[in-house]
């Protein structure tokens, strides 16, 4: 990594930003916070307004996308829901999207359609309410505009609660006999009626009405009979529904623009980044300066490109100092790239620290293979991953993940052949050729298999210690490498062999290697006691620290035992698969449909088994790397190298790698 400073005249700013952005090699850091300078109100205002403008455009694009998304017909499949599919575009189309797509027009149309749709929906709901309130009045034969006062009489439409209606009727007839009460309709809640009475008796009528919870009903604006009014409402509803359909059809005609809109949104987000990045620049009235990081190999490319724009640009490269925390970029051979996923999951190494990716690749694959541990599943995994990788337009990271699964699939095939697991068929029923490839049958000899897993784990741990020594050597701390890690390398194998001898019962003549192991353990232990706390000047503290270091070695026992999960997961795959095979066999005995049923159970069952074991087969080996292996040599905590470059949420560019 090289630290980059770029100074140029302000007039070249946007040109330079475009060039750097297209190149995508520079990780820009915040210089403004470090360099205290006087505020430039003009620059601030310009920045704010540019940002506001692009934000407005983005929110418009979001509105249109959300609006259209509500009318999409296609349902997403299960797989598509799991993996985010991307749109494949040419770079040309991306950069020219604003020329191609008349977005303002689309936005205006969407807005108009949205308003129209809302007003139609409002009107429809209003009409349906009106219809509901009109329906009880259907038996009324007169027109609403006839319900009004005459010279001597008054007309009223209204309702009272049904429970009190009979009493109300009696009282009215008693007190104001010269009135007419015509019941229109009734339901369990209220009874509706038309009341005609003499105006001069109005007060008495009102008195009776009030006593029974009378509510006058009016239909302002309506003139015809209830029947004709309902017909009119129905007609209006039908017209609105037609209009709604037309509007929705117009929206559907816009949906084909969705890919373009997604491209546009990414384009706008990209422009936003170009504006935002300027907040990191240190600026004066005439000049601006930016700070960033570039890979050493890329440094000349960056400066050449900047110089090509104008001679008035100055680019300086500096080696990182002690206080700097340069961002981290993992560089591995192409076939190792997929394993970076495992490293990234944990965290990036600090600057100058060992990248564990190449070192975890082999063991991770082997562990993954043991956890799946079946030839058939391995093959299935390879084919599925290969097919998905070919078929789906996904980002580079997801592609790498599929490659990782393909590696794991091969390892699973090997592990399966050696343990005699072919689609979880029990070994007795295997053809002799396949059975002969078997080296060990975990179900019959679990202890031996368990010991194998422990041994594999122990090797993995020792490898971690070796890497710890290597890390010291890289930092030039030879003494630490030899005394600290070297003493562990002498002690641990010796102690392990002693434990093995102890567990095997120790009967009979001790084997020839026994004295060697014994002395390795003793010498190793002494070295650890003497040198573990090498930095300490006080002899007592040094010995105390050493003894504590020796005590720390007990953690290796727990770490080693932890690898028994490999056997457990391998067995679990086999046992579940076996149960599925038995179920399939049982189904076969059902007459007529038996064969079809068996195929269905086997296909669904084995896919299910593969899927659930896949999760464990990824997570548990990863855990073994992180918790058992990494603790021996690796700390992590690095910052990711994020070059200022095109970054897309929904797009994959055709014919070029993205997603660095």
């Amino acid at each position, binding site marked *: 990594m090289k630290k980059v400073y770029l100074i140029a005249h302000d007039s070249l700013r946007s040109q330079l930003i475009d060039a750097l952005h297209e190149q995508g090699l520079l990780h820009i850091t915040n210089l403004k916070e470090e360099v205290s300078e006087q505020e430039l109100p003009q620059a601030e205002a310009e920045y704010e307004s540019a940002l506001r403008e692009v934000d407005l455009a983005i929110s418009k694009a979001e509105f249109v996308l959300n609006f259209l998304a509500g009318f999409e017909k296609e349902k997403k499949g299960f797989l598509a829901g799991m993996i985010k599919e991307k749109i494949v575009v040419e770079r040309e189309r991306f950069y020219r999207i604003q020329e191609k797509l008349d977005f303002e027009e689309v936005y205006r149309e969407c807005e108009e359609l949205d308003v129209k749709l809302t007003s139609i929906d409002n009107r429809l709901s209003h009409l349906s309410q009106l219809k509901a309130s009109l329906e009880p009045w259907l038996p009324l034969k007169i027109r609403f505009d006839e319900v009004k006062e005459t010279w001597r009489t008054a007309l009223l439409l209204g309702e009272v609660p049904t429970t009190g209606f009979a009493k109300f009727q009696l009282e009215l007839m008693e007190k104001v006999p010269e009135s007419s009460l015509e019941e229109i309709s009734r339901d369990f809640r209220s009874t509706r009626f038309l009341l005609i009475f003499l105006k001069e008796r109005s007060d008495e009528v009102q008195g009776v009405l009030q006593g029974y919870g009378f509510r006058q009903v009016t239909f302002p604006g309506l003139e015809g009979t209830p029947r004709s009014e309902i017909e009119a409402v129905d007609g209006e509803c039908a017209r609105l529904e037609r209009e709604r359909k037309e509007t929705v059809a117009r929206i559907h005609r816009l949906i084909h623009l969705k890919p373009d809109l997604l491209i546009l949104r990414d384009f706008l987000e990209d422009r936003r980044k170009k504006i935002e990045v300027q907040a990191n620049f240190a600026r004066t009235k005439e000049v601006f300066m930016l700070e960033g990081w570039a890979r050493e190999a890329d440094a000349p490319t960056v400066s050449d490109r900047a110089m090509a724009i104008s001679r008035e640009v100055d680019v300086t490269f500096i080696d990182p100092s002690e206080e700097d925390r340069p961002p981290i970029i993992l560089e591995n051979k192409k076939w190792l790239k997929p394993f970076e996923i495992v490293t*990234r*999951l*944990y*965290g*990036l190494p600090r600057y100058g620290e060992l990248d564990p990716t190449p070192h975890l690749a082999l063991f991770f694959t082997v562990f993954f293979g043991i956890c799946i541990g079946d030839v058939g599943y391995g093959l299935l995994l390879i084919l599925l991953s290969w097919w998905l990788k070919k078929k789906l337009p996904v980002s580079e990271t997801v592609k790498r993940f599929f490659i990782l699964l393909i590696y794991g699939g091969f390892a699973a095939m090997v592990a399966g052949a050696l343990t005699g697991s072919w689609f979880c068929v029990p070994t007795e029923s295997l053809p002799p050729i396949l059975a002969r490839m078997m080296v060990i049958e975990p*179900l019959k000899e*679990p*202890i031996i298999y*368990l010991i194998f897993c422990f041994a594999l784990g122990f090797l993995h741990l020792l490898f971690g210690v070796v890497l710890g020594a290597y890390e010291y050597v890289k930092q030039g701390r030879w003494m630490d490498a030899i005394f600290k890690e070297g003493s562990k390398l002498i002690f641990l194998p010796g102690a392990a062999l002693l434990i093995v001898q102890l567990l095997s019962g120790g009967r009979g003549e001790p084997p020839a290697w026994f004295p060697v192991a014994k002395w390795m353990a003793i010498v190793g232990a002494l070295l650890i006691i003497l040198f573990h706390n090498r930095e300490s000047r006080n002899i007592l503290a040094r010995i105390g620290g050493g003894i504590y270091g020796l005590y720390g070695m007990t*953690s290796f*026992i*727990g770490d080693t*035992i*932890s690898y*028994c*999960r490999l*056997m*457990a*997961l391998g*067995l*679990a795959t086999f046992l579940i698969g076996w149960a599925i095979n038995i179920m399939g066999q049982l189904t076969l005995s059902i007459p007529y449909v038996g064969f079809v049923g068996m195929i269905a159970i086997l296909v669904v069952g084995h896919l299910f088994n593969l899927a659930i074991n896949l999760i*464990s087969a990824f*997570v*548990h080996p*990863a*855990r073994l790397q*992180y*918790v058992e292996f*990494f*603790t021996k040599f690796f*700390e*992590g*905590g*690095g*910052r990711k190298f994020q070059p200022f470059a095109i970054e897309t949420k929904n797009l994959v560019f055709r014919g070029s790698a993205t997603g660095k």
Partner: protein
Amino acid sequence: MQETFLWLNGYQWAVLAAGLSAIFGGIGSCIGITSAAKLSAGVLSEDPEKFGGLLVLCILPGTQGIYGFITAVLVVVFFGLLGGAGKDIVLAQGLGIFLACLPVMAMCLISAIFQGIVSTAGVGLVAKRGEEAGKGMVLSALVETYAVLSLIVSLFLLMSVRAG
């Protein structure tokens, strides 16, 4: 008539031992994982990018269930429960098997629950500082040590019961 203790004969004690090992390990792991996974779901609603680190933290208390399972398998295999040999287990041996499995039963149940608590705290750590997921994992793995030790003890005891 076979000898019995608390109504169970030797074979039944062995079956009980295997079953309870798997059950207790499983219960512990379920509780532990649930505790961490619940909080993780909350963190993911804010920051789906952290799924990887959180997944590992959640799966950490799953080890105890595996240890219980291993113990159960070992009992089944050591004492021939799958074949007919299981019926020949005498009461003393059956009780021995049960006692030998006790460390795993107790420790896997308890350590998984507590490991779940530490993992949950780790999820909180990841929520605030995503780059420190590794340290959260290491802390959580500290608790697991004692489940490992109980597995070793149970293993030895089972071997000694088999040797008679």
